[in-house]
């Protein structure tokens, strides 16, 4: 069972996500949107979206750094003071993300305008994210110094996945809540192409280096004329 959950499912989830996302993008990039609902309701969104996004992005950055540079991370966190700071930042951000999600969930369920545009996928996504953040915060609270042991205990498992040689022994004896956190994360990856989560894939990074104004010619006589001359 755990062979499937942690050795096979991550691949199914990732392949599904990548293939369907690429297919959708090429077939119908119209679907790629953050589908913002701020226009219908702005105030409650502020108290949900802001803590959620800043919180979760910080926590994800921590996960990513530990995944990319585990030994440096472990060395860094060896000093108790640093570990404490890391832990406090992650916990605060985790709580922010959690509270933000709760606000978002409440808003989605209770606001009559938001109700109209809420799909089943929206609710499923919110629930999965709630489970994810709750389990993450739970791990941080009950299995202390996660920012240290994550890099030495879970990152090897993730890296073994990455090199296509899954080593589930790293994860097999972990507490339930850790397992839930890991499995659920791949579940979220799997549903990316079906939900509004796609918007992070089209985050507007190129905005920063494009000129402000854009002109598009359907039929640029100048271009074609120049080509003639050359």
């Amino acid at each position, binding site marked *: 069972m755990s062979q499937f959950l942690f050795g096979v499912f991550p691949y199914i989830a990732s392949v599904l996500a990548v293939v369907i996302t690429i297919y959708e993008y090429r077939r119908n990039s119209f679907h790629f949107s953050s589908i913002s609902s701020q226009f219908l309701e702005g105030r409650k969104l502020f108290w949900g979206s802001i803590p959620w996004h800043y919180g979760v992005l910080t926590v994800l950055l921590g996960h990513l750094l530990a995944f990319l540079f585990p030994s440096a991370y472990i060395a860094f966190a060896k000093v108790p003071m640093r570990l404490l700071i890391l832990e406090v930042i992650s916990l605060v951000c985790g709580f922010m993300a959690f509270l933000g999600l709760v606000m978002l969930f409440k808003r989605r369920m209770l606001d009559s305008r938001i109700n109209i545009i809420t799909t089943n996928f929206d609710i499923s996504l919110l629930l999965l994210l709630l489970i994810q953040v709750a389990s993450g915060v739970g791990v941080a609270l009950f299995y202390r110094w996660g920012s240290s042991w994550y890099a030495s205990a879970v990152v090897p498992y993730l890296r073994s996945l990455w090199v296509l040689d899954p080593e589930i022994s790293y994860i097999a004896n972990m507490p339930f809540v850790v397992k839930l956190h890991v499995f659920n994360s791949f579940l979220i990856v799997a549903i990316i192409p079906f939900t509004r989560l796609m918007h992070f894939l089209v985050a507007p990074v190129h*905005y920063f280096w494009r000129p402000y*104004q854009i002109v598009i010619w359907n*039929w640029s006589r100048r271009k074609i004329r120049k080509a003639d001359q050359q």
Partner: protein
Amino acid sequence: MDIRAQISMVFHLDKCIGCHTCSIACKNIWTDRKGAEYMWWNNVETKPGTGYPHRWEDQEDYQGGWILNGGEIELKGTGKKRLLKNIFHNSTLPVLDDYYEPWTYTYSDLFDSPQGDDQPVARPYSMVTGEYMDVKAGPNWDDDLGGSELYAKNDVNYDALTSAEREDLHHLQKMVMMYLPRICNHCQNPACLASCPSGAIYKRGEDGVVLINQEKCRAWRMCVTGCPYKKTYYNWQSGKSEKCVLCYPRLEAGEAPACMHSCVGRIRYIGVLLYDKDKIEGIIHQDEKQLIQAQKEAIVDPFDPEVIKAAQDCGVSTHMIESAQKSPVYKWVKEWNLALPLHAEYRTVPMLFYVPPLLPVMGNISHNLYDNNGDQFFTSIDDCRLPIKYLASLFSCGDESLVRDVLKKLMAVRVHRREVTTGDISRSQADDALSQAGITAEEAEAIYKLSSLCTFDQRFVIPASHREEAIEMTKMVLEHKGEVGFGFKEDPERI
């Protein structure tokens, strides 16, 4: 010189009767859809009034447009610097309630109600939630309510007036209003475009129409904040922003946009302007007082052989140049200097121009007789009911002399025509008025003709768009000779 062509518009406000036919024509074609019910790409406002969305001119609140910051131009509320701050929650985004909640009525109740003692009624219900609602706002809720304490008083342009002048506008005998029809200005320095993080908005090279690529829009909704005229709208159903497309499919077929075609007062003119793109950078950095002058200077003379040569080198089609030579917009804006842009101080270089209204002149009642004020026949323009200051706040960044010059000319044309038609004004008086306004009798005649006797083809001079040539960008046409046509093939499916 980098000469570009821009399809540009003039609205003659003296002729607008506020019938909203333009809005309805536009609505029927473009925004009669789920998620777009609240959108009015074309709307007509009563001024003084608050407009749609509510107080859209208040940029301290909505943070639209560009500002000059220490000599450098930057977006007021959006842009690269503020993206991270705005993207998760855009604090200056107008929400549905700033526009209005669209509604319809339970018409079927009128037919299906069982027989009873009372007349059945059609109750209003929200087109968003479907719940019954009390209608408390609409897209022209303050229609014809100039002078009202509730609406006119909240007009943002009142800031330009002294409190005594404001009070005056609310006195029964001095009450005044005008109509202000608005569509997208298809600006030369569009703030919506510059605000769009996805790069979905673009200006068409051929004719300057500003469009949103629905495939690329990712609902970051910065364009709605960015546009100071609030002419980009967010479709809450599809999760995409939308705006006036200047009916480009109609333009490409040689037809006038629906709002213009249907205009009952025939206030609308459309035509090509040629402009020097290299000068745009200079315009937007100008001091507020010079903005309009600079904008007009960038519009070049389509008869100048040098301009024609440069335009051809820059890839402007011959049809476009010919069209620019016949353009009614060129006459209003450049030749006669009668049309001014709306709120040029937002620095988007709007390409929709307005001929400010002359409006009824101030009257007085003495001995139970109504009479004009002043000694001239049509009285003096300084006694206009709507203070020139107010018009200047709308159309000339507060520069009263620009508006006064326009009104003087409009008045001179009237005096001149009065002399021609009824003769109760002497020729010398008429000539005086003309020379004071700085126009000749021939010009006055031409202005009169284009104002009052203009035909359809004089109002709408639309160049051939040559979409058939556009295909050469992507396909070798000769290779496809004999096939069943070619074009952009696209999956029409939508969610």
